[in-house]
Every structure is written in structure tokens, then in C-alpha cells.
């Protein structure tokens, strides 16, 4: 979708080319002003050890753990924080105006605080929002917090209310139905199988078990285990699905000069993309893949100057709410050609040690604290670039991608890199 109107390109003295993203239409022929925003780096990450229940903490304390860890990792205190962005999904904890409630969890007295919430993409939306806080030049060091204490509530019942109340709620409730329907189409169109999806489960659960003490589910599984697990919603089985987890994640974003002082290796935000295109689940039913992910990743790649995602990206942290997504969404990322998902997964290139490891952290299949999950992807990608990913480190990772998913098949994408220029 190209604009018919003239589009001015702007080149900037920062780490990425700020060109117009595909799909956005700008009708103005305007004089671009010189200063186009500030380079933003991630300088610290903290997260809880995510579990199905964390009964020794209330929600504010959970946030406190993640925030303390992030501050410690960057050797900062709350005094150094200029603003806070937080997100979660209200109905999971039934707390209205969580931004106000949360100040108790991170010592937010007299701090600027703001809440962003966009459903499952909340965590990534929070990360993007924190980026904008810093890139705007208004705030130098910004704390992004995502959290959820699902264990306290009836998740499916809460998700059901996301369906448009007058038409869809009674039929399509719950996150699983839509994902199952989509994979069913992909299987039909391209010959993918339930076993292909199982390979994704095995990969992610294996990574979590072997490398990530923060992950919720830390036992390895086999394809056989997956295929023996009961159907939740054909063709998706129990072990294809993400769990529901309690946890919190905090990520620190800082402006260039500050970032360089805080840490020797900031993880620069090189590109962003976002597509919240549909409202009714039925809007996306003609498509076997994830169209919003394709749009968002193209935006991000263009901004970052990435031309060959599979070759250039060293590690991906992807929000896969079901293992089937790890098969059917690969082409949307530009990792393989259309319909190439099954071959891609079967080839093993996405395993640790492969050409493009996906989800060294175990991803969402191993941990899903919804309000945090998207932010954890950003945090994990940043840890990879900062060289702080411990056992789950992909050696010499220079370019990482983090994706968020949620709502009605919405996607957010962020490219994180240690490089100054990517093209």
C-alpha cells in the first residue's frame, strides 16, 4: 500500500533510517526538520521467576521484584528514573487504574506514571510506549513494567469479554478458538501437521528447561508427549498451548548519552512496527497466516534497514501463543517463503545452535503472564544483544527481533541491535 502523495524521505544521524513505513499514508509534502528524535537503548532488564502461582507476593510486590532486578542490573535507583509506563489486562486482576495502584510496587511517589493496555500485545505496547517516552526527548531514563497475576482469576472468562459483546462473545470466546481455526486453514493449504506444531513446543519447552530459570514450565517434552495430550480445540492440543503464569518484567530504556554511561553495551532500538488491524475474529478468517505480523515486521525491518531477515537476524523472541504459530507465522516474519513454515521448522534452523534460534527463553509456550509477556520478549531480546542472556545466550548476537501478539490478531515488532547502522 504505497501513498499516492509524495513522501519525503528523511535520513537521520541515528542508528536507523526513518523512512515511511509501508502501509502508512502521509499526504504531506512538508519540510522535514533536522532533528528526528533520539536514539534509544535498553540498559537493564529484570523479571521474576515466573510460576503458575506466586502466593507469597501480592501484585505490587511482584512488580517490586522485577523492578529491583532491573535497577540492579543497570546499577540505578528509582531516583534515576524519569518516568514509568505500565501495563496489564484489567479483568485479570480487577484493579481499575492500575497505573495509580502500581506506584506502591515501585516507589512511584512523585513520578510520572502512565498506563498502556492493548490486550495480549500489552507487554510489547508498553515497551513501544517506553521507547517513545525516551525518543521524544522528554524523558531520559524510562522504566517499562509489564505484569500479570493470572492465578488469581478465571482467565478464560476474562478473555471471553474481549469478544464484541453483541455479536461474537457467545460464539468465539477465548483465545484458543481463533488460533485453532487459523492453523486448521494453514494445515489445509500448505500440508502442515500437528507434529510440526509439536516440534515448536518441544523446542521452546526444551530451551526453557535447559537454559531459563525464569521460565514457568521447565520440563522437557517430546513430540509424542504433545501428540498424546488431549485436544483443547482441534487441531490444537494441550501441549501446543501456552500456560497461564504469574510474573512481572521490567525493562529500562535510556537516551543515547545516558545509555552509554549506564552500560557498556546498550541494546539499541533499531526499528518498530505495529499493526492492530482487525476487530472481529471473522475479519482475519480468510488468511492462514498472521497478516498483522507481516505488516508490522515489514515496518520494523524498513526502519532498521533489514533487507534479508533470515540472514541478518541472529535471534528472535517471538510471541507464539500456540505452538502452531511457530509454524504458520514464519513467512510473515520473512524467514521463509509462503507455505514454507513446515520445512522451516523441520530443518532445525530455529534450534539453539541453528542459524536463527527462536525463543531461547522458551517463549510464551513456557511462560505466559499476559501483561508481561510481550515485554519479556523485548527484555529477552535485549539481554541477547547485551550479552547478558546467561545460559540462553546466542553467541555474538548483534541483531534481535522481539514480537508481541494479542487482541484480535494484532502484532507489534521491535528490532534491537548492538550495531550503529544495520544497512
Amino acid at each position, binding site marked *: 500500500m504505497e501513498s499516492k502523495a509524495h513522501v519525503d524521505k528523511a535520513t537521520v544521524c541515528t542508528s536507523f533510517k526513518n523512512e515511511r513505513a509501508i502501509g502508512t499514508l502521509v499526504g504531506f509534502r512538508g519540510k522535514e526538520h533536522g532533528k528526528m528524535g533520539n536514539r534509544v537503548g535498553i540498559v537493564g532488564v529484570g523479571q521474576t521467576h515466573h510460576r503458575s502461582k506466586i502466593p507469597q507476593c501480592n501484585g505490587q510486590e511482584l512488580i*517490586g521484584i522485577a523492578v529491583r532486578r532491573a535497577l540492579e542490573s543497570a546499577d540505578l535507583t528509582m531516583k534515576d528514573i524519569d518516568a514509568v509506563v505500565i501495563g496489564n489486562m484489567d479483568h485479570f486482576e480487577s484493579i481499575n487504574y492500575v497505573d495509580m495502584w502500581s506506584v506502591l510496587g515501585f516507589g512511584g511517589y512523585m513520578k510520572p506514571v502512565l498506563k498502556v493496555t492493548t490486550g495480549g500485545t500489552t507487554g510489547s505496547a508498553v515497551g513501544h510506549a517506553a521507547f517513545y517516552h525516551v525518543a521524544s526527548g522528554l524523558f531520559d531514563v524510562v522504566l517499562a513494567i509489564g505484569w500479570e497475576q493470572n492465578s*488469581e*482469576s478465571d482467565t478464560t472468562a476474562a478473555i471471553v469479554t474481549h469478544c464484541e459483546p*453483541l455479536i461474537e462473545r457467545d460464539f468465539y470466546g477465548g483465545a484458543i478458538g481463533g488460533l485453532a481455526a487459523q492453523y486448521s486453514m494453514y494445515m489445509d493449504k500448505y500440508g502442515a501437521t500437528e507434529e510440526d506444531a509439536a516440534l515448536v513446543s518441544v523446542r521452546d519447552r526444551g530451551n526453557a528447561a535447559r537454559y531459563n530459570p525464569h521460565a514457568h514450565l521447565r520440563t522437557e517434552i517430546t513430540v509424542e508427549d504433545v501428540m498424546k495430550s488431549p485436544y483443547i480445540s482441534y487441531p490444537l492440543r494441550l501441549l501446543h498451548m501456552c500456560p497461564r503464569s504469574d510474573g512481572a518484567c521490567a525493562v529500562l530504556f535510556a537516551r543515547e548519552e545516558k545509555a552509554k554511561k549506564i552500560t557498556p553495551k546498550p541494546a539499541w532500538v533499531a526499528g518498530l512496527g505495529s499493526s492492530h488491524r482487525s476487530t472481529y475474529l471473522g475479519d482475519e478468517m480468510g488468511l492462514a497466516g498472521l497478516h498483522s505480523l507481516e505488516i508490522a515486521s515489514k515496518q520494523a525491518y524498513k526502519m532498521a534497514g533489514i533487507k534479508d531477515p533470515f540472514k541478518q537476524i541472529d535471534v528472535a523472541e517471538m510471541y507464539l501463543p500456540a505452538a502452531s504459530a511457530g509454524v504458520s507465522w514464519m513467512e510473515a516474519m520473512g524467514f521463509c517463503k509462503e507455505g514454507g513454515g513446515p520445512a522451516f521448522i523441520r530443518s532445525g534452523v530455529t534450534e539453539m545452535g541453528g542459524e536463527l534460534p527462536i525463543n531461547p527463553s522458551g517463549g510464551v509456550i513456557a511462560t505466559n503472564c499476559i501483561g508481561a509477556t510481550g515485554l519479556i520478549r523485548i527484555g529477552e531480546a535485549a539481554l541477547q544483544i547485551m550479552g547478558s542472556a546467561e545460559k540462553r545466550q546466542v553467541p555474538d548476537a548483534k541483531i534481535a527481533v522481539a514480537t508481541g501478539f494479542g487482541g484480535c490478531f494484532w502484532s507489534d515488532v521491535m528490532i534491537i541491535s548492538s550495531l550503529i547502522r544495520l544497512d
Partner: protein
Amino acid sequence: MTVELGDTGTRIHQSRIRLRYNWWLGQVMSGFYREIKERCKIFGNKCPECGLVYVPPKENCPKCFAKMTEFVELAGTGTLKTFTVVRYPVPFIQPRNPPFALGVIQLDGADTGFTHLLGEIDLEKIEIGMRVKAVFRDVREGNLLDIMFFKPA
């Protein structure tokens, strides 16, 4: 509720969201309510940095973000800092039928206010600065309302 087609007027769809919730109290609040339930004692805790004593106690000082591990037993008496008399009904959530009084009480030994009900009190004669004391229920469950209310001391 169904919507009739063919009718051009605006219709209303009625529904409810029914969601159960269990909230983890965390260790500090669990301890706070346990002491109230088992021993009719109210505890606060103290910030090692600013020295303020908070009630209810909390893990982090809201201002300093320091962990507060020093617990302070407070008297059940205190001074009324502000109050109101609620004279309108809201279904489901009110602990008493209106009119009823709410107040913020600075307990002796604490630096912050404790918000609770006021009872056994003339609703028209409440004044800031009144001395009040906690009245506990005979049968307690381990939550805020184990304290029935604060009454004039």
C-alpha cells in the same frame, strides 16, 4: 437478551461480567490480617530510610522504595484525620447500609493514616481531631472488616 431486527429504535443489550477473584495478600498483608484475626493486634512497619511508620504495613516504602522489615505494634487508638458520612447506596460493595461514616485515622505510633469505618458514633457530630479506638468483631475471618469500626475513645 435478544435484539429484534426490523425495529429502528436503539436497543439495549444487557449482560453481566461475572468473574471470580482471589487476590494473593503477600506475606506482609497476610501477617497484618493474621495478627488482627488471632490477636486483635494492629501492626505497622517502618521505613529504614525515611523513618515513617506505615499502616497497613507494606513491603516497600511508597516513597523511598526501601524494603521495610521492622514491624511496629500499634495501639488500637488514634486520632481522626478526616472523615465523611456516606449517604447514598451503591449495590454489592458497601459494608453497611448508608448512612455510614468512613474515616482516616492516624493510629498512635504510626505516621500515616488508616482508612476504616466509624461506628457507635453520632454521624452529625464527627470532628477531625477526635480520639477513636478500634472495635474488633468477636468472630474474625482475617480481613479488614475484622475490625468492625473505630468508635470514640
